[in-house]
């Protein structure tokens, strides 16, 4: 299958001791699985936090059995206090955005598959790669430690606006050591991501195998590459923000805290700082971050769709261009999180314009997907179902963006459940669908076994219908002006909305429970799943040209030579309606 005349090169021998093989491994495949495992733990913790939150919103004064074991102060007798609700909210957001949505699609799948898809034996800097995972893991542990300190996790949200997050314990529970742990955790996370981005970029530029030109990179590799460029510059700004926050908190500086603040009857000993500075720094990172969460999913879904439709997309180059445009524009729109923040109102219009424009490349990508289905031979298995579902939920999340991009509508919708509905659809649903599609698709390659497709389909149906039941009503609540981040609903105008919240909570509990179908499928199939062939999906990219799972050096000593693009589907191949990238067949004649 590969060029037999190329020299067989063993770069290094596989380690044999457990600690070097599985713990401090420099093998990108192990590191990818470690990141994925960390994301899996994080998502289940995050999901259970959301159950606690949703339960409390509807049955506010009820005791949740056992909750007092998690926090004596936060839930005396099992009844959640308002501050503990905010702690859970903060940890939910922080875990999900950082440790799930940045870890799984990018660090997880990217680490595992980028080197293989470009025909390399490993990442460019394997030791930095190992360090990046371990720094991230330590960051995770530091964050989780906040649950176990007496004062609990911080209550300032994943956005940690100053001065609430900067002044310390006067402003509320959890804002002393809880907030410190948060800031340290996120700072460490930044370092891990920067090391990761470094690896992805250098590897993609320099370690492509013979014949793997940039235009022959699979779309998922393009997506990881673009994401790492976005992430490099974004995390390089969040890290300074965390440094400044920590200094304000422990060193008495005043980067974010102005003079004259009286909190808990104490006049705060700071002056001259600017709360808006935190918001600018945070959102300059925060907006590109959401594209870091979605672009890998766009790449993964596109990759899977082509294999599922048995045809290439109408134009992958247009999708590349759109992804790059989105990446570029993502740096110009951060102020749309700050329309009502007190910044110059003229700036609002300036930020609104690129925010509206960014819709265009996103729509182009969506319409390319939909248009590509015309004339397809769609195979319906779990990966393709989640990929098609992705299109649906991406549209749902995208259209609510139209409203929020306009400052005049933001006057009414800001701070309401409409915003929560929007970002959950694009991140909490669409990006997760990308992760799930990738999981079902690549599980056979990573483990040598197939996941059970029947149970996968059951998981899909519960999840797809469930997420619409949970998150579509958030928009209705937003139109009614239901404010977000409230631990309970006491205002008069909110009372008629309580039945909606009850519906959402029940839907969330059921949909959440369905995720355990996926977890059990994952674990069971790992040990008892049907054996997988090298290429169960009849796909073309280089990962399918090696064994399932791949050997230590990815290709068993072969030096891969690439002769075809990644999207040769719907052609007259020697083995079917496709041609693999390293196949010695000639290019199909004509079109």
């Amino acid at each position, binding site marked *: 299958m590969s060029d037999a005349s190329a020299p067989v090169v063993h770069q290094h021998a596989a380690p044999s001791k457990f600690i070097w093989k599985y713990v401090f491994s420099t093998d990108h495949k192990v590191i990818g699985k470690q990141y994925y495992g960390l994301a899996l733990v994080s998502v289940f913790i995050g999901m259970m936090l959301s159950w606690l939150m949703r339960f409390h919103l509807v049955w506010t004064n009820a005791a949740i059995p056992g909750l007092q074991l998690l926090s004596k102060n936060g839930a005396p007798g099992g009844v959640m206090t308002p501050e503990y609700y905010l702690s859970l909210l903060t940890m939910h957001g922080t875990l999900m955005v950082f440790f799930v949505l940045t870890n799984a699609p990018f660090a997880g799948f990217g680490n595992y598959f980028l080197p293989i898809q470009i025909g390399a034996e490993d990442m460019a800097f394997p030791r930095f790669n190992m360090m990046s995972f371990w720094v991230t893991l330590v960051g995770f542990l530091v964050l989780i430690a906040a649950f176990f300190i007496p004062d609990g996790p911080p209550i300032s949200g994943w956005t940690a606006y100053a*001065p609430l997050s900067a002044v310390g314990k006067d402003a509320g529970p959890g804002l002393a050591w809880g907030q410190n742990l948060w800031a340290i955790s996120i700072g460490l996370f930044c370092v891990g991501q920067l090391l990761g981005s470094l690896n992805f970029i250098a590897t993609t530029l320099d370690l492509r195998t013979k014949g793997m030109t940039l235009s022959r990179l699979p779309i998922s590799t393009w997506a990881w590459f673009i994401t790492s460029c976005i992430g490099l510059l974004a995390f390089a700004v969040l890290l300074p923000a965390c440094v400044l926050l920590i200094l304000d908190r422990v060193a008495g500086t005043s980067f974010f805290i102005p003079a004259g603040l009286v909190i808990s009857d104490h006049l705060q000993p700071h002056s001259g700082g600017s709360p808006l500075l935190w918001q600018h720094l945070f959102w300059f990172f925060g907006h590109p971050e959401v594209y870091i969460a979605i672009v890998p999913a766009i790449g993964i879904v596109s990759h899977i769709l082509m294999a599922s*439709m*048995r045809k290439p997309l109408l134009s992958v180059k247009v999708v590349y261009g759109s992804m790059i445009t989105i990446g570029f524009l993502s740096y110009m729109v951060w102020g749309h999180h700050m329309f009502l923040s007190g910044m110059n109102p003229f700036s609002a219009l300036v930020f609104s314009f690129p925010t509206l424009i960014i819709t265009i490349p996103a729509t182009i990508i969506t319409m390319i997907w*939909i248009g*590509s289905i015309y004339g397809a*031979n769609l195979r319906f298995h779990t990966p393709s179902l989640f990929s098609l579902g992705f299109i649906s939920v991406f549209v749902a999340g995208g*259209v609510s963006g139209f409203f929020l991009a306009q400052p005049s509508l933001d006057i*009414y919708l800001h701070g309401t459940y409409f915003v929560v509905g929007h970002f959950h659809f694009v991140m909490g649903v669409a990006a997760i669908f990308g992760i799930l599609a990738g999981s079902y698709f690549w599980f056979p390659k990573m483990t040598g076994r197939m996941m059970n497709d029947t149970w996968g389909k059951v998981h899909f149906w519960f999840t797809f219908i469930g997420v619409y039941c949970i998150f579509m009503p958030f928009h209705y609540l937003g139109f009614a*002006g239901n404010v977000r981040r409230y631990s309970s609903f006491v205002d008069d105008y909110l009372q008629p909305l309580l039945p909606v919240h009850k519906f959402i909570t029940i839907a969330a509990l059921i949909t959440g429970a369905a995720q355990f179908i996926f977890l059990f499928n994952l674990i069971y199939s790992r040990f008892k799943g049907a054996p997988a062939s090298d290429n169960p999906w009849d796909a073309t990219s280089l990962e399918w040209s090696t064994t399932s799972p791949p050997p230590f050096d990815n290709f068993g000593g072969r030096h891969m030579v690439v002769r075809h693009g990644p999207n040769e589907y719907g052609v007259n191949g020697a083995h079917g309606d496709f041609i693999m990238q390293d196949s010695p067949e000639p290019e199909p004649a004509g079109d």
Partner: protein
Amino acid sequence: MGKLLAVVLVLIAIASAVPILMHTWWMPEDISTHGHMIDHQMSETMAESGIAFVAAQLVLATLVGMFGDKKDGRKAKHLPGGARLVVIAAVVLVGTEVLALGVFGKDAWAEVYFKKPPADALPIQVQAEQFGFYFRYAGPDGKLGPMHPDKIDEGNQNFFGLDPANDVDSRDDIVSASLVIPVNKPILLMMHAKDVGHSFYVRELRIQQDFVPGLDIPMHFTATKVGRYEIVCTQLCGLGHFNMRAFLEVKSQDDFEQWLKQQSQ
């Protein structure tokens, strides 16, 4: 499976759209002079995005239903017009939508933020703190006295840190826990935060504005209907955030003057 997905997509699209079309849960009545511009913009955006959402789901459903693998060996084919058609359609459709929304939307924003408050606007200072709003009126002398953070004393209800003993202007200042205003008269709020970030939101007035510690932010509006409305905080400010609320009471001019006189006593 494809047909099933198609049916579910159609049902989801319809189910999502129905509560919106029927305004089952919707914005309350607008009681401001500028709100109609926001409401108009909202309806325009709703129509355009609603059509986009439903159309996308229906087209996706149709194609998914039609183009399943029939396992008859035929090769996949491309949409006539290809990527070019799609890109042009996306740019034209979304581009015009975006331009329209952006160009017309700025007027509603400008009405609230670029227009200067009229000279006769009634100035009222609003202070947001953990966890309540307090309002200060200038009193007959028309001047608000200076605030001294070190003099703030919640226990003695000195929320603004006033020093009437030494500051003449503070002596006739009226402090209230409710925002009481006359109908059909422009109001100029001066928004001040005592401790952390908060936000001021009155749904019926179609206004919302963050309080930023260290800044004093002006905001003006005119209420057009007498009544009692909730003011809620929309910026996470601590454990009492959910409970941070005050009431806006819009009174007739006579009732307002009466109330003002009562407060002065």
